[in-house]
Structures are given as structure tokens and as C-alpha cells.
């Protein structure tokens, strides 16, 4: 017989694995429940609009400022390399494609997870800790259709909007560096960009990416809050987990989505 203590590492491994799977299943169940009970978030639209205000409008400043700087830095770095090959006019294409295809959706999602995701997790975790959710259930009000679903749809709506704003402001930042500062020809900047950025393959795919990231980020934030232990420590840990899990999921999903979109 093998001693029981020898098997301990294996047991902890199994426990951790089962816990992960359990959380995945619970998250999927919450996602499904949210989808089927999201009728009220559209019938009483002001619930969703309120949440769009808190997740979308309040994230505008950080999104716009970081987009502006990302665009400017992209133009500076791109120019540094491109002028060696005598094709500094291609800087518009470089900035636009990098932003629309990759940086826009991904950076927006990462910022969204940090700005809005944590707020959602902390709010719902605290609602649970102060037994507001239980109180709602006592009054026969479903917390999922009243609290979870409006926040979910607000995140799904806000993310693509923030993404296109990020792309537009980033391109503006790139333009400001490339044309007035460096002295690239403005006509070449825009015309090369227009010739090489495709509406469906680049812009629409970027928007599709951001919708998927919006679903993932918001759902992770909602689940972490809903699943948080009702203590101060539990809520703070759930908030941390929201940022870590959302960021990793966004990066992983981005690879999967890109590989699908490139092959199409």
C-alpha cells in the first residue's frame, strides 16, 4: 500500500482542477441564465442605459487619452523604421492597420477590464456581501434579470463603441505626429491608408473582435462578483481575479480570432 501522504500532491492537483472546471461550468450557467433572462433589460431600457453610462461614458477619458498616445507612439516608432527603406508614406497604413486590427480591440478590452470590469465586480460583490441580492430574491425580483443582465448588455454595447473611438483617436494621434511634426505628406498619409485598409476584412473584423471581448470581459467581471465570498477580503480577491482572468482571456481569444480571420 502506498502511504496516504504520498498521494497528497496528486490530490491537491485534482482538487485544483475540479475547482477550475466547476467555476467554468458555473460561469457558463450564469451566462446562459443571463441570456435567457435578459428580456427585462430591454423592456426597461433605462436600466441598461444607466449601466452604459457607468461602463462606457465613464471609461471615455482613459480610452481617449491612451488611444491618442498609442497612436502618436506608433507613428514615431513606425517612422523610425520606415524611413530607412524610403517608404515613410506608408506610416498611415501602419498606424491604421495596427490600430484597427489589433491594438484597438485588445487595448480597449484590457483598459475596459481594468476600468469597468473591476467596478462591476466590486459592486456586485458588495451587493452580495450586504445581502442586497438575497433581499431582491426575497421580494421575488430576480437579481439576474435586474442586476446582472443590464450590466452584461451595457458592456456588450459599450465595448465596440469604445473600440471604434479608440481607433479613430489613435489614427488622429498618428496623423498629428506624422504630418505636422515629421512632415509626411498629408495626401499620401490618407490615400495609402484608404488604399490598404479594407472595410470588411479589417474594420468589421476589428469590431467583431471587440464585441467578443466585450462579452468575455463583462461576463468574467459579473461572474467574479456574483461568485465572490461575501467578505471584504473575498470581494478584493474577486476584483483582482477579474483583471487577471479578463486580460488572459482577451489575449488568448485574440489569438484564436485572429487565426480564424487571417485564414478566411
Amino acid at each position, binding site marked *: 500500500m502506498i502511504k496516504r501522504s504520498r498521494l497528497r500532491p496528486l490530490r491537491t492537483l485534482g482538487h485544483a482542477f475540479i475547482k477550475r472546471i466547476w467555476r467554468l461550468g458555473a460561469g457558463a450557467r450564469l451566462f446562459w441564465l443571463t441570456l435567457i433572462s435578459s428580456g427585462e433589460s430591454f423592456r426597461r431600457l433605462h436600466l441598461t442605459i444607466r449601466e452604459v453610462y457607468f461602463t462606457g*461614458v465613464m471609461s471615455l477619458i482613459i480610452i481617449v487619452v491612451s488611444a491618442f498616445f498609442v497612436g502618436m507612439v506608433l507613428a514615431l516608432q513606425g517612422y523610425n523604421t520606415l524611413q530607412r527603406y524610403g517608404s515613410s508614406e506608408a506610416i498611415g497604413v501602419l498606424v491604421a492597420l495596427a490600430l484597427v486590427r489589433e491594438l484597438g480591440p485588445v487595448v480597449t478590452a484590457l483598459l475596459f477590464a481594468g476600468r469597468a470590469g473591476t467596478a462591476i465586480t466590486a459592486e456586485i460583490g458588495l451587493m452580495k456581501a450586504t445581502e442586497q441580492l438575497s433581499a431582491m430574491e426575497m421580494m421575488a425580483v430576480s437579481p439576474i434579470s435586474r442586476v446582472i443582465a443590464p450590466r452584461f448588455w451595457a458592456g456588450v454595447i459599450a465595448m465596440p463603441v469604445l473600440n471604434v473611438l479608440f481607433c479613430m483617436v489613435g489614427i488622429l494621434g498618428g496623423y498629428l505626429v506624422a504630418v505636422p511634426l515629421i512632415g509626411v505628406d498629408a495626401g499620401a498619409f490618407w490615400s495609402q491608408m484608404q488604399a490598404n485598409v479594407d472595410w470588411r476584412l479589417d474594420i468589421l473584423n476589428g469590431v467583431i473582435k471587440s464585441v467578443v471581448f466585450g462579452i468575455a470581459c463583462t461576463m468574467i467581471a459579473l461572474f467574479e462578483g456574483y461568485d465572490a465570498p461575501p467578505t471584504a477580503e473575498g470581494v478584493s480577491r474577486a476584483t483582482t481575479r477579474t483583471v487577471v482572468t479578463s486580460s488572459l482571456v482577451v489575449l488568448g481569444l485574440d489569438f484564436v480570432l485572429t487565426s480564424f480571420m487571417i485564414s478566411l
Partner: protein
Amino acid sequence: MERTTIDLWVGIFVALGVAALLGLAMKVGNLTTVSIGETYMVSANFENIGGLKPRAPVKSAGVVVGRVADITFDPATFEAVVSLSVDKRYSFPKDTFANIYTAGLLGEQYVGLEAGGDEVALKNGDKITQTQDAIVLEKMISQFLFSKASEETKDSPPAQASTPAESTPSDSTKMEDDALGSNPIDAL
């Protein structure tokens, strides 16, 4: 916060988003140039299309008049069949010449149409018979090297001809030595 204020801010937010998407589509993307409107399809056979891709521009006199719609391989003739969708506003004569050009030395490839002199215009589903293949750079380089090599084998018999050419530099260096040698004397 008042519900009306929130509504207003969300309205501004969504309107900004729609405006940014429109801006991306019009200013950044090529939605305006892609939607050529009414087009007609013409096909052309090429022995070699090089790196031509679907959606590549079709140009005539440098102006984009259409796009490459589809590229297929014809197993009967072993040729590439390129279908071009050309803007209906532009009609081309039946004996139009289709070439595959490269924009710049290593740039993207496009189809160039050169109008002929025929009275009858190309219609939807017609085939352009006069085509010229893409220039494949590797092929050109190998041709160039082969022709160079054959030239050299022709040149090799008069090998003595090169020896006087070799002797001239040594002569000139001797002259320079003399000049250098004489300079100090001049200075004195």
C-alpha cells in the same frame, strides 16, 4: 444623477461611436471606392499570374476601373482564369489588352487594361483574348544570368585582350611613383 442627464450622455456616447465608425469606414477604409456600383464581369486567361490576388485593382491609364473578382485554375488549358469586375460607366473595346503589372519594383500586382481600336465593346461574360503574363522577378534574373553566362563563354577565346588592360594600371602607378619622386626635387 438625473435620468435625463444619463440619457443625454449615453446618447452622446453612442452618437460618437457611430460617427467614429462612419469615419473609419469613409476616411480610413476604402468603403467609398469599393462600392463601385454597377459592374460587368470580364474574364481573361493568363499563363502566369505571378502574385495577383483577388480584390487587386484593375487599372486603365492608371485609374482604378474595377477589381479582380476571382481567380481560378483551368485544368484543360493549364491557365489561370481571372475574372474582372469592371465599372459599368467604363466600356472597353473588344480587342482590349490585359497585362499584369507590378506597382513599383516589389509592390502589389494589378491588372492593366489597354484599350484597342475595335468598334464593339466588351459585354458582361466576355473574354479578353490578348493578355500578357506577370513578370516574375526570379525568371528575369535567371534569364539575365544565363545570357550573361553565354556572353562570357563567347568572350573567353580572346583572353590575351584582357592582359594589356591589366598592365595599364601598373603603368599609371609607375607614373605616379615618378611624379612623387620628382616632387621633392621640385620643392628643393
